[in-house]
Every structure is written in structure tokens, then in C-alpha cells.
């Protein structure tokens, strides 16, 4: 696990064990990239470095974002998509990674459907691993880009009321955000149907509350974070699909309960009419596209920090 002492040199596996100092460093550096950025211009701080992007789960946006981040810093990147089925037939995860490690990349960015897969590998490989999402556990760069986006609209995270709504149980985005936001003193309200909101979530960190009611979650909120309803990650029927939008879909009437300057976020890709209405998705309050843009800056900062 990454600790404050060794910083991010060993990789970035999650937010939970990251110190405030490290997070602040990444956010500050990402902000610098945001200010400097002239579209298309490349830096050369990571020239000659090789980053392997290894995706065991399909993800166009996260993979592309890391790829662009690596290229803007002058690093070379190789992107590999591995269908889970071919792994089960052939090479084990350990063998796949050993093979790649023998090619001596400087870092491996990895997404995997199994929680803890990057942690397991980090114990056996000497190469830094950046977790680009592991199962239902963590998605650290998403929480970093979300924090950066909030800070584009608010001076600090302290005391903010953040409502996170949707399939919390199966969300790595929610877990990473809970850890990050509470480290900086935000009040987080998690909201979803009881089958997707185990009570133990309330003990993830201090300052976390749970509710099954949208209006309760949103009243007075500074930030509304909608989650994708990850039907592909669900093992069983947990909510009558036809009722979902009626109970937990974000509509304009909800947004009006929040603070007037509320921002609405979503990690994407959005399901219009399932998690939120088109009206809200396209509204002034929506910062969904800023999140995408900030993703590149945050990942540049992480790559720079991880690569020695």
C-alpha cells in the first residue's frame, strides 16, 4: 500500500491510503497543467519513458484520457485491451503481468474487473502500478479529477455538502470519492435504494451519512454526483429496473432543492433517462464535460509523480 512516506513512487492503488499532502500536490500540479495548456502542445518531461495501459475491462474514456496525458508529457504509451475471456482460457494474470514487466515499462496503468487485482500484482511486481479502476473497490484518478472539478467552482472542499446518488454498493467511484472528500472535511451523503446501499458504507470514513431519499440527500447540497447504474456489475436483481428513474433519477425538481450554485457531476458515460434527465444533463449546473477535461490534467500530474 502506498503510504505518505514512499509517496506515489510505488504507484497509485487507491485514495484510502493516500495522505492529504500527496493529494494536494497532485491537485496543485494538475491546476498548473490546466493553466499552461495550449491545445496540442506537448511537454517533454517524460520523454523516453514507457507507460503500458493494460485494460482488462473495456473503457474508452479512461484509457484515452491516460493515453493523452502520457503523450502530452512526451511519454510513449502502449495500450493493450485484454478480454477477460481470453485470460480465463490461457495466461493467468500473474503471467500476463510478468511478461509485460520483462519488457521493462516505467509504469503500468491497469483496469481490472476484480477488486484488489492491482494490489495483488503490486505485491509481486517491482513496477509502479496505477489503478485505473479495480472492480467495485477504487478508482483513484476519478476522485482526483472530481475534486479538481469541484475546486474549479469552490474555494475549498471543507464543509461542502456532497450528495452521491445511485448504485453505491458497486461503485468504485463512490468509494474513492468518499475517501478523498472526507479527508478534506466535506460532508458526504450517500443515497440509493437499500439493496445498493449497505449500512456499512456509513463507516467508510467519518462524516458520511446514508439516506434512501433523494430529497433528503440533495437539500442544501453544494455538489450532486450521480453514479452510473452499473447493471453489468450486478450479480442479482437489486431493484426493479422500471422503477429506477422514478425513485433515483435526477430531475430539475430535485436540483431546485440544492443550493442555487449547485454543480451536477457524473463520471460518465451518462444514461439519459436512467440516472438523470436530459434537461439536467444539459443544464447550466452540469459540469460533466469539465470533469472529462480535468481528467487529462490529473492523470498528467499522477504520471509525473509516479515516474521517478
Amino acid at each position, binding site marked *: 500500500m502506498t503510504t505518505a512516506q514512499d509517496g506515489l513512487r510505488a504507484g497509485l492503488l487507491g485514495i484510502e491510503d493516500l495522505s492529504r499532502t500527496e493529494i494536494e500536490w497532485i491537485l496543485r500540479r494538475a491546476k498548473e497543467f490546466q493553466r499552461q495548456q495550449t491545445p496540442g502542445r506537448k511537454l517533454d518531461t517524460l520523454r523516453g519513458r514507457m507507460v503500458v495501459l493494460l485494460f482488462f475491462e473495456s473503457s474508452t474514456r479512461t484509457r484515452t484520457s491516460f493515453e493523452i496525458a502520457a503523450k502530452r508529457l512526451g511519454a510513449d504509451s502502449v495500450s493493450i485491451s485484454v478480454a477477460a475471456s481470453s485470460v480465463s482460457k490461457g495466461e493467468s494474470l500473474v503471467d500476463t503481468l510478468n511478461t509485460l514487466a520483462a519488457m521493462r515499462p516505467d509504469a503500468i496503468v491497469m483496469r481490472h474487473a476484480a477488486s484488489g487485482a492491482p494490489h495483488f500484482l503490486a505485491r509481486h511486481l517491482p513496477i509502479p502500478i496505477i489503478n485505473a479502476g479495480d472492480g467495485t473497490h477504487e478508482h483513484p484518478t476519478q476522485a482526483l479529477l472530481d475534486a479538481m472539478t469541484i475546486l474549479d467552482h469552490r474555494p475549498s472542499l471543507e464543509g461542502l455538502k456532497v450528495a452521491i446518488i445511485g448504485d453505491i454498493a458497486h461503485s468504485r467511484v463512490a468509494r474513492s470519492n468518499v475517501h478523498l472528500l472526507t479527508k478534506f472535511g466535506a460532508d458526504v451523503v450517500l443515497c440509493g435504494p437499500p439493496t445498493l446501499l449497505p449500512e*456499512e458504507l456509513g463507516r467508510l470514513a467519518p462524516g458520511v451519512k446514508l439516506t434512501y431519499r433523494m430529497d433528503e440527500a440533495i437539500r442544501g447540497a453544494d455538489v450532486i454526483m450521480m453514479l452510473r447504474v452499473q447493471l453489468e456489475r450486478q450479480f442479482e436483481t437489486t431493484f426493479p429496473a422500471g422503477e429506477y428513474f422514478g425513485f433515483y433519477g435526477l430531475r430539475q425538481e430535485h436540483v431546485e432543492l440544492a443550493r442555487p450554485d449547485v454543480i451536477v457531476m457524473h463520471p460518465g458515460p451518462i444514461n439519459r433517462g436512467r440516472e438523470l434527465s436530459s434537461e439536467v444533463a444539459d443544464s447550466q449546473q452540469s459540469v460533466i464535460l469539465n470533469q472529462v477535461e480535468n481528467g487529462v490534467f490529473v492523470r498528467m500530474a499522477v504520471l509525473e509523480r509516479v515516474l521517478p
Partner: protein
Amino acid sequence: MLVIRNGRVIDPASGLDAVCDVYLAAGRVAAVGANLDAPSSAAVFDATGMTVAPGFIDMHVHLREPGFEHAESIETGARAAAAGGFTSVCCMPNTSPVNDSATVTSYIIERAKQKSVVNIYPIGAITKGSKGEELAGIGAMVKAGAVAISDDGRPVMNSRVMRRAMELAKSHDIPVIDHCEDLNLSAGGDMHEGETSVRRGLRGIPSAAEDVMVARDILLAEVTGARFHVAHISTHHAVAMVAFAKKRGLKVSCEATPHHFVLADSDTAPYDSNYKMKPPLRGKHDVAAVLEGLVDGTVEVIATDHAPHAGSEKMQEFERCPFGITGLETAIGITLEELVHPGRITLRKMIELYTTGPARVMGLDRGTLTPGAPADVTIFDTATAWTYDVNKTQSKSKNSPFHGHTYKGGPVATIVAGRIVWQR
């Protein structure tokens, strides 16, 4: 002929606890007493400062033979048992083929005669292929030497089938051992459902998966009058229900594994498959309830659920790894450390949990040092520090979370039918 001199001999069955000698001859206990005369041809084992007990019995192990010899065999599993101080083990039927017929039962007994240094008692399956549908040839297996029935690892979900199995088991005077797990409630789970599983993003196995099956089986035991034994009990509700059943006078018993009374879910290294087993390591209050059950007698057996898996099977993503850990070689060390040294139970009580307890549940004519009994003896010490090194295990598999742990006291010598089969 072997004479064990000057050990502290504790034989709970006869109430003996004294420093004296044990004389073994012709595969039997010939005499127990101070300064025994023995023929000069008899070998002498100096047990000064050590504890001499009836041979320990582990009523719940997986020897993997036939079918999974890459992970364990009757020969290697038996050597691991001997190295852990066990003179007898009962092996679960989830082999390939499943031990659901007299043919497989006889095969195991035959292999054990050729290859095993300890006594091996096969447990037959409840249903054919342990599929939970059609009853296995229970009577024929009992005739061939099976001492109990269980569909361990693949519990019988159909309550009607379980009821019939209990009725038949009663007629053969053998216990029904159930791995109590509602497979619908536990489906997809990788560890105990609780704060730790939620934090790690792992699917949980709720305590209720065990509780509802323990409740069902106790009710069926009352209906049928069968002897029913809960394998590897892990939840506080299950312990309470077994205590309730005993109070009602039912023939209900249960066992606990060392890992379930020493580790909780929050103690586990994240995503380390050496902490992955069924039932999963539960919450702190469950561990406390199992400990309490051991102290108050609700839990009358310690069994290891020794479940070897080859290294490659455990070197995978956590959710892909099979369930189970090895346990034979660490049981005595853990029991001393967790139960005896802190004063929770006496040394005599510990010996009961490994001898008279399992012998009573399984109906075995063992577990005592009274003259005439089989010459099975476990000699251990309670003071010498030693560190468990999984790389030196007698088992074929190394999936233990206790590697590198230092214990105070452990097995010294294991004697089966008067012969020393393992020595420290």
C-alpha cells in the same frame, strides 16, 4: 514396544493427570503408571517436561485423493497430520470421483493402509456426486468403513433430501455433518459481509447464510432424532442455536476451526487468498462467541478443515481463488496460544477438544490412554518457541495465513499403533 517416560500424562477419559509413564505394546496401551517396569528391549522416549496425551483426532480434513493429487494425497496429508500431532483424521468426500459409494470408500481405506502413517476414516457423501438430489449409497459406504456422511462444501439445499438423509443416518448410527451455507444467500461472495468487505469492494457472504441452515438442520434433527453436527461453526447466532438445541436434549454438536477462533475479517491482509475460506472469517463478535462456546462446552471439537490448494490456484485475483487453507500443522500451536496460555481453558480441556470430543461425535473407539486402547499418543510441549515455516510443510500445499507466526509450544512426537511416525 515403547515406553514413554516421565511426561505429564493427561487422559481426560479416565481423569488421569500425573507425571508418569505410558507403556505401549502390541499396538495397544499396555500400562500407565509411575516407574513402570518394561522389558529392556522396549524403546524409551524421554518425555520429561512434555505433555503426553491420547492421539489427537482431526474430524475434518481434505486429503484430495482421489482426483486432486496435485494439491494433496493421502500420503502427504497423513504426513502433515502426523507433523501436526494428529494420529487420526476423517476425510471429507469432495474428491473426484466424490466418495459417494462403497467403491470409493474402500479405495480410500485401501490407499490409507498402503500410504498413510495415521489412521484415516472416510466420510461418505450424503447425495450422489454431492449434487444434493439423489441419496448416495449410505448403507454400503458405512459397511465399507465410512464413519459419517456430509456433502461438505456443497451443502444439501433441499430440506426434504436432508431429512431423508438424517433418517437413514440414524438407522446406521452415524452423524450427519453439515457445512451450513445457504448457497443462494452466499452466491458470489468472497469474504464475510461486513464493513471490511464493503470497504474492499468485495462481495460478502452474510452470517445469515450459515444461520438459516443451522436453524433448518436443528429442526430436522429434532424431527428425525438424528445425530447432527455443525461443521466449522463461525457465527454467534449459530453458536447460540447449537446451545439451544443441546438444552433441548437434541443430539446436536459442533466443531470450530483454529482460524475461526483466532482471526476476524478485519484481521486479514487485503486481497490475500490465504485468508479466503468458507465459511469466511467473521466479525469480532462472532470470534468472541466461538471462543465462548469453546469455553462453555457448546463447541466440543476443534477440527482444522485442512483444505490444501496448489500454489497456482491461490496465485490469482482474489475473487477467482478457491476457498480453503491448510491447518493440520498449526492447530496445536494456535490452540495453546489462543486458548490455553491466556487461561481461557485448561490443558485438559484442550486435550478433550482434540480427543474425547471428536471420538464421541464420530463414534470412534479412540481418544483415551486407558489400558487396552489403541496405542495412539500425541506428545507436545507447551513452552518451546517455534516459528511456522510453510516452505517446510509436509503437505503438498502452502496456503496458510500462519506462515512466519511464532508459537509457544507445539507437537513433539506422534505415535500411531505404538510406532513413532513423526518427531520434531
